[in-house]
């Protein structure tokens, strides 16, 4: 059942999707919440796992299309455990 739902989400583009443009822009699609929004650390909660972005002068842009754009000098990215 869980495998079927995952395939359905994948087909309908509801899965978490992360695009990185160099070290200056990072877009997270299907973001649920903003957990931390600091100049050196941004933490986002997606449907499946948390995303942690480290860097300098980070800014979060929310265009209300379900995605979040993080801009700044990105130095690190880590993905948390699924289901947390």
């Amino acid at each position, binding site marked *: 059942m869980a495998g079927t739902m995952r395939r359905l989400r994948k087909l309908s583009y509801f899965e978490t999707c992360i695009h990185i443009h160099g070290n200056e822009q990072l877009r997270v699609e299907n973001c649920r919440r*903003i*957990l931390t*929004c600091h100049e050196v650390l941004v933490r986002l909660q997606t449907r499946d796992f948390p995303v942690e972005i480290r860097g300098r002068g980070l800014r*979060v*842009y*929310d265009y209300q299309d379900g995605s979040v754009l993080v801009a700044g000098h990105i130095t690190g990215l880590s993905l948390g455990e699924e289901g947390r």
Partner: protein
Amino acid sequence: MMRIREYCTAAVRGQRLYPFINAVREAGLICLSQHCKGGVFYCRVRRSEMPAFTALARQHGLEVQLREERSVLRKVRRLRLHIGLPVGAVLGLALLLYLSNIISVIEVQGAQPAQVPVILSVLSQEGVERGTWIGAVDAYRCEQLVRARVEGLAWVGIRHTGSRLVVEVTQRTAPPAMLDERLPCNIVAAHDARITSMEVYAGLPVRQVGDGVTQGELLVSGVSETPEGTAHFHHSMAKITGVYRQETALTESYTADAAVPTGRTHTDAWLCFRQFSLPLGLPHKAYAQGTSVERYLPLCLLGRELPIGILRRYEEETAVQSGLRTQEETMLLLHAGIVRYEKNLLQEVTILDREILYDVTEEGMTAHVTYTLEGEIGIVREIYVK
């Protein structure tokens, strides 16, 4: 760089910042450049969404500080009550449309300098001049009129490029002048004179060098008769010079009226646009008597004259002062008149002698000049034959 849309920079302070941030996300408000620093949440929100944003912050017990950013729409909003700008824009647009639809300059190409004012005058009589609406110009009719009223034109074409009206003309090639060498004529004396030389090229001379002749007397005959009594008429040609006398009299009065400047001057100026003129300064009462000089200075752009300019009029008041000349001054004036007379009227003859007799009266002085001249005395007199 100034943005087009209006945005506000918000600084939100309080304890529950992250629930508020996510509430903003859920409320569907576009929120840019979000970051937290020193326990303050900074972001940029559209101006139109600021009431919802502020209400949401109050719901979460947060304090909001707003600052409007510079933008084009904000400037326009601030200037919306300044009616001068839209009025100026409309007037400027109207002026642009007007200037691009009227004749700003008329160029005449291919005409002789003396024909240009005539052509412009003909066009002006038809209402075609600077300031005329281009659409109202009947080019075909103007071409016909200019060709009919201006001599020496073979073809006239009128076209306009933008606000410039170009009149192209082609000169008519004149046929060669007809020679009247076959016209029967005599040569008679123009003055009472003594003949000093005769060069007869055609005709029968009836006088010789040294003869004295009276005015109108036949010098060279164009009629010859055969022994059978048949008359033949010829064209006479001759160069006959003689010595003759000519008299003239010049008079100058002792009294002289002269306009003397009083020292009062005034300069008026107008800003001229087409037939409209706007005075630049207070009105000035014209002098009862004086001289005035006008000078028009058109404004130029890229070497071309604009239809707007400044007209300056310089006025100087004068007063009539009567004076008396001495005999010497009057005589000098008479001499100047005699020189002028000789320069103008006796240029083609040789002055052999000049006798001047002065007649002095109470009012003035008269110079009676008697010239002895040597020059052409033969004039052509046609023979009218049925």
